[in-house]
């Protein structure tokens, strides 16, 4: 598994949960960084992702992700 810090997205609503915009990941407990500590607005978190979705530097590789999931659902808009 590759580990790196990723931005989070989403509003925390049922239709738009707070998440990392990657197909397969696990947030690492205790690594949360908050944009607003008082409001507990999550800014980024360290995630673990499968090795075949990252490049040689251990960063998420959009081409590999698109190939692995064949763009279904669309992962083209992800930002690592």
């Amino acid at each position, binding site marked *: 598994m590759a580990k790196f810090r990723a931005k989070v997205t989403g509003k925390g609503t049922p239709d738009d949960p707070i998440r990392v915009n990657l197909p397969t990941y*696990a947030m690492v407990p205790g690594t949360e960084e908050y944009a607003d500590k008082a409001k507990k607005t999550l800014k980024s978190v360290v995630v673990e992702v499968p090795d075949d979705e990252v490049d040689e530097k251990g960063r998420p590789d959009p081409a590999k992700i698109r190939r692995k999931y064949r763009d279904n659902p669309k992962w083209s808009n992800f930002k690592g």
Partner: protein
Amino acid sequence: MGRQYSAGPQASRLAWYDRNPASKLDDGDWVGTTPHALTERVSYTVPAGKKAMLEGALMRVRRATAATTALRAAVEWALTPAGGSQVRFYFAEIITNNAGDQEMVYLPLTLILCSGDKWAGLSVDGSTGGTCDYKFRFKVTEFDA
């Protein structure tokens, strides 16, 4: 009279658990987490050309320290079919406010996930103050579609 053939499935095809199977597991424990909006903690998406048998999952929510104002604290497993919308499939929740109050659910499953389907564990705590502990764990066998 010619030989009779059954109209069953392709008999020569290997069973799903023999088609390049691979076990995928995930496990996460969040301890002393403050109230938060609905957050996806773990996510698994079935790769192209594969299917996955979801064989078991566990989720737990436990109030670690009492809240000032307790509201619903919950854990959920959600399924998003490829191209579809997320459906929160299983949940466990507490609305009581004693440290140690908990709900834990063990799910022995035989859900078949198709290519592009996403399985995710989410947590939410609408309380003011206090903390909760969360746990998610699941296991799938991924195989050639």
